[in-house]
């Protein structure tokens, strides 16, 4: 995938308006954001400021009502639903606050899922899944079901699932939100390691302790970017 101006992600004047019972809610307004390959960016802000909406547009789960969103060199608005799904599968890795593992599937099957949707041969999948689980230290639990794991372990599996497709960018939505501080810190360490190995990460958080793990920090308020800063040193 080519990248215009060296940017992996480009948001130009992106806005998002929700219509509920004829009431317009401006979730995002005139957002300009660029993420380069290898960036580690934190999107912070109070609850309801539009962080998750921004992440969902970035993750091709939603579309902007105005502005332009370019991922790699592909303008997202020109994509059909099927093309968006395909691009999402190849370019985006999600880590959710509530892990969002599928309870009926084993750890292995959960991690394997993005590759299944990519129609990858089972033999190729096996190696990728094994490597991904190894990376997060969960290989030994591959036959367990999510309900048999602790929250921290579930989130590690979710990270493995996000990584398995070798995405262009990892989008993490409050990845520590449902974890205690010890498990939260452990997940943040994992993300740091991934970043050091070259992963591009965009993380939504409202916890300043974890925001400091990122190299850049973007502050949202009422759907607008009100502050953008570069963090001097990562923990």
């Amino acid at each position: 995938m080519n990248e215009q101006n060296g940017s992996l992600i480009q948001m130009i004047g992106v806005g998002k308006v929700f219509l509920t019972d004829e009431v317009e809610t401006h979730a995002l307004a005139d957002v300009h954001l660029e993420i380069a390959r290898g960036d580690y960016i934190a999107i912070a802000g109070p609850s309801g400021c539009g962080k998750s909406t921004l992440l969902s547009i970035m993750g091709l789960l939603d579309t902007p009502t105005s502005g332009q969103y370019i991922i790699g060199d592909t303008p997202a608005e020109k994509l059909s639903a099927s093309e968006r799904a395909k691009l999402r599968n190849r370019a985006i890795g999600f880590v959710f606050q509530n892990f969002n593992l599928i309870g009926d599937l084993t750890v292995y099957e959960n991690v394997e899922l993005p590759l299944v949707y990519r129609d990858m041969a089972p033999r190729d999948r096996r190696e990728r899944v094994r490597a991904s689980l190894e990376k997060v230290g969960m290989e030994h639990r591959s036959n367990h079901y999510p309900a048999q794991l602790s929250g921290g372990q579930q989130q590690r599996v979710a990270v493995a699932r996000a990584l398995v497709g070798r995405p262009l960018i990892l989008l993490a939505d409050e990845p520590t939100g449902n974890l205690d501080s010890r498990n939260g810190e452990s997940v943040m360490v994992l993300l740091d390691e991934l970043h050091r190995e070259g992963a591009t990460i965009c993380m939504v958080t409202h916890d300043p302790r974890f925001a400091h793990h990122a190299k850049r920090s973007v502050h949202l308020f009422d759907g607008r970017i009100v502050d953008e800063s570069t963090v001097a040193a990562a923990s």
Partner: protein
Amino acid sequence: MHTLWHDLRLALRGLVKNPGFAVVTVLTLALGIGATTGVFSALHAVLLASMPYPEPDRLVMGRRTQDGTVGRWVSMLDYLDYRDQTSSFASLAASPGGSFPLASTGGDRPERVDTQIVSFNLFSTLGVAPVLGRTFTAEEGAPVPAAAGPQAPMALPSVGIVSFGYWQRRFGGSQDALGRSLTLMGQPVTVVGVMPEGFSFQGSADVWLPMQPDPGEARRFHNWLLVGRLKPGVGLAAAQSEIDAISGRLATLYPDSNKGKGLHLDPLHDALVENLRPQVLLIMAAVALMLLIASGNVASLMLARGVTRRSELAMRVALGASRARLVRQLVTESVVLALLGGATGLLVAGLLQRALPTLLGLDALAIASLRLDWRVLAFAFTVSLLTGVLVGLVPALRSTRISPFEELKGGTRTATSGSGARLRMALVAAQVTMSLVLLVGSSLLIRSFAKLVRTDLGFDPDNLLTASFALPPQPYASDAARIQFFDEMLAEIRALPGVTAAGMVSRLPILGPGGDIYVWTPDKPPTESGLGQTAYSRRVLPGYFATMRMPLVAGRDIEAADRVGAPPALVINQTMARTFFPNESPLGRKLVVDMGDDTPVTFDVVGVVADARIGDVASVPYLTMYQSFYQFPRPRLALAIRSTADPQGITRALRELVWRRDKDIPVEELATMTGAIKSSMLAQRTLAGTVTSFSLLALLLAAVGLFGVLAYQVNQRQHELGIRMALGARRGHVLTAILGQGLKVTGIGLAAGVVAGLALTRLMEGLLYEVAATDPASFLVAAACLLAVALLACLAPALRALRIQPMTALHYE
């Protein structure tokens, strides 16, 4: 009691709060319970209830046995011997299998009166009293020697009893009807009684005449059905033992006719319902399966509702409710729903009760209508109660298996379908299984009926009009007079505009079954070991075969020259030719026929005609022989007219030409042969139609069940589907996931249905015509039909799944 009342109040309040759920559940159960109740009332009337006669348990039917094989009819002289020699019966009566038409004159115009000849004691044996006048006396049923041979017109008794309907129609319900005279076949018959409304026995009749036995009648002719009333305290076994002893004596006295002959006694009710029993049981099985399918839907709804109520139930547990208490409350709710369903279902039952007597032909049991009596209501109540427990118990046990702490803490971290979903899927699979069994059953019945409709009758029924004539003794006492009347009438009919052919026969196929008599080759006369072979006997006028389009395969037709003085001529059908003359030509060979006279008649076989269905459409071709009417000119002949003209116009012309000769001969509206064939297939059509209707309803319910479960699943799986979409699942993946889920459960149900169908449809073998109970085509059609409906039922939830927005599903802000 207090807690039950509390639970009832809660249940009713819950239903009011969820009217949609309540209405769907109540209507679904109403359909199942109502249909089951309606059919139960027929089942009860047919198989369980007593007949509308006093002390019905004492009534028995007697049927002839030959060498241990149970037949039906008994000879008149055997009947008289049994009647006079038995001490087990308070009375033993005889009735024919049906009625026959007689011309009634003396009114504005001659009319056809359906008449039944019965033994004088039939009414008292059954225990039915007339509403007006009296029944027959023993003197009125005393033996009377026949005046002449079988060709002679019948001499009628001087008294008769009329039906309630004929009393109203002919006499306007007047009390003065008693003592009035009817003119039947030109003979006066005095009305001595009127039977109650709705009374009939073995077919409807306008007039009953007393049987006046002919002491000279042959013991080898069997035309009567025996009905007896046992003496109080006499059991069936004891009566049978005495009857066997009488049969033994008769065999010794009359070895030629009675060797190996006996009389088999059955409870009258059992004997009358033996043909109805499999039909009613099959329909009952169909509605019972339908009720189970409906129950499956409701149980599924209950399971789904249980999931949505987990927080509420957890809170109740937290407040101190025991699991048993919660289960009881939930089961009370389902029982209340089922009772409401049962009450609503009584409307469905009422509708079925109106239709079933006609559809099933319950009039044979003197059942004109079915009622919602206390037994039926008790059945409906019990079924509702059991259904309520059935649909409520498992969901209640499952819903109350909760961890209150987890529930009240709220939410789970993973998206899972859970074991409740598996149970719902198992329910749907079971519903599919039952639907397939029903569909296979109806498919078999439809194919069987289709084969029946397509059966080659051996004649062409299209554009064929029919009528029957019976000549009175005067002025048709002589053979010549009868021959002249029918000959000239037929010639004039053939000349009518629009008539392409016309023929006459003593009994038309399908319309006039029976009439089989003994026949043998001269070198193999009947021996003591048996009376020999029987064949249907028909007398025809020349041109009958051409009119019916029955091809002559060898020899010649009956001709005008086949008259008295000429050698008796016989045309036989192919089956008869094969039976008597295998691998050789029957033409020119001789057959001896017992025509009812003292001396059998030897015939020359002059022709062979193609086989035709004589008794009914489903019967296999049987030996049939055709004699010349000119040589045996009896007073009754049936007419077949082939014409494309308007039947009413032909009827008018026929009346005109008949009444120009004799104004006392009734000419009813001409009936079409196709109509008669349709009527003869009514039982099969009714059975196929009824079972198919219930099967389609069951299919609809199963489809609704599948749709409901999948729709619920899609709703429950929104989160999971959202995750999958976030991970890159495309529309095809989502569609396949939902359709696959539906089709997988359908496939499991189908596989189980095929196994169950193969086991259960064997029970239907006796109801099928030329179709095997394991007919692969029927299984395939049923499975394909179910699969198509299942696919449709899956499609809507699958399409709905496509509309899931991943962001919404993942609970983004």
